[in-house]
């Protein structure tokens, strides 16, 4: 039951993009086409889950025993950066098809604050390993949901006749605001 609560809460109620404001850069950057949005979502899900496991292990088996918890930020960002690089190299060898699909998005993920944000949230919420994995996957699904819905809206938005000043970023932000408003409807269900 608690896992279901974690999932519903992360996907809908506290959506990582629309309620917590993490991962806004890819949300605005790669949302002009549904196809690229799906690719990016796949890459984020993949890296976020692995990053959650690895940072959990680093925290509990390296940083805490050595009593250097304050090195968290430095350690995490290094781990995530090298992890992304490693995933890229392994994917290239093991599954060229998947690499083709996710390839261009992988380097962008290092500076996706959603990955580091989730890793830090896991420590703050004091989850165990299984809860951490569930939380990471649920957040990635939440990210995917917001990104793909938003990309769908933006594709239709191309056909709209807008005032000059609102074209591009401003209208995208206003649309994201309305989407966030819709997601607020989920508040209170868990």
């Amino acid at each position: 039951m608690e896992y279901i609560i974690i999932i519903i809460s992360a996907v809908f109620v506290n959506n990582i993009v629309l309620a917590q404001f993490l991962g806004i850069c890819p949300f605005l950057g790669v949302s002009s086409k549904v196809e690229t949005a799906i690719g990016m979502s796949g890459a984020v899900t993949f890296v976020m889950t692995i990053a959650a496991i690895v940072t959990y292990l680093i925290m509990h088996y390296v940083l805490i025993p050595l009593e250097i918890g304050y090195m968290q930020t430095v350690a995490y960002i290094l781990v995530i950066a090298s992890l992304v690089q490693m995933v890229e190299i392994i994917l290239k060898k093991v599954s060229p098809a998947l690499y083709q699909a996710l390839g261009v998005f992988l380097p962008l993920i290092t500076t996706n604050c959603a990955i580091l944000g989730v890793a830090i949230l896991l420590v703050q919420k004091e989850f165990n390993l299984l809860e951490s994995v569930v939380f990471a996957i649920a957040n990635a699904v939440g990210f995917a949901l917001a990104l793909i819905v938003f990309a769908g809206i933006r594709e239709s938005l191309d056909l709209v006749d807008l005032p000059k000043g609102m074209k591009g970023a401003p209208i995208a932000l206003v649309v994201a605001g309305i989407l966030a408003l819709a997601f607020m409807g989920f508040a209170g269900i868990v």
Partner: protein
Amino acid sequence: MSQLTNFTKGFVKENPVFVLLLGMCPTLGTTTSAVNGLGMGLATTFVLVMANVVISLVKNVIPAKVRIPSYIVIIASFVTMVDLSMAGFLPALHAQLGLFIPLIVVNCIVLGRAEAFASKNTVGSSLIDGLGMGLGFSFALTLLGAVRELLGSGKVFGLSIYPDTYGMLVFILAPGAFIALGYLTAIMNRLAKK
């Protein structure tokens, strides 16, 4: 480029938030009030200035291949300093900004300036560039914070402008952040074009 234009470009022409659309996460996440926006802006400014100075000092020592990881470590060290000192001296503000302080590490502005400016320029102009960009970022965050606070609760910097029963709560919540930033960006684009 004179040092003055180097300093002022961060405010309007190359404003990191309104024009370059960098650093969106803290911009949206921390601007529930003008004070929070200003606090976040100044914390980022400190990291930006220190990272720019240190990176321009060591730019000739670091091999080109490992420069990005080295920059990230330098930035992360300053972020940790800000995080710990803020938790010690300003616990209330630290609690408000929460997660977004450690996330300065992945703020694209900091790494962006390190790579685009500090790695190619002298210590002096990197310092001015960091300060200009940082203050431009702070300006944007404070402005957005003030607008949201005014519309949401009728206050600016905690000073009551009109009774807060007329405030539109949505501007303090998540959707208001996106909508207010969208319209501010449109206005800023208009001003920057003139």
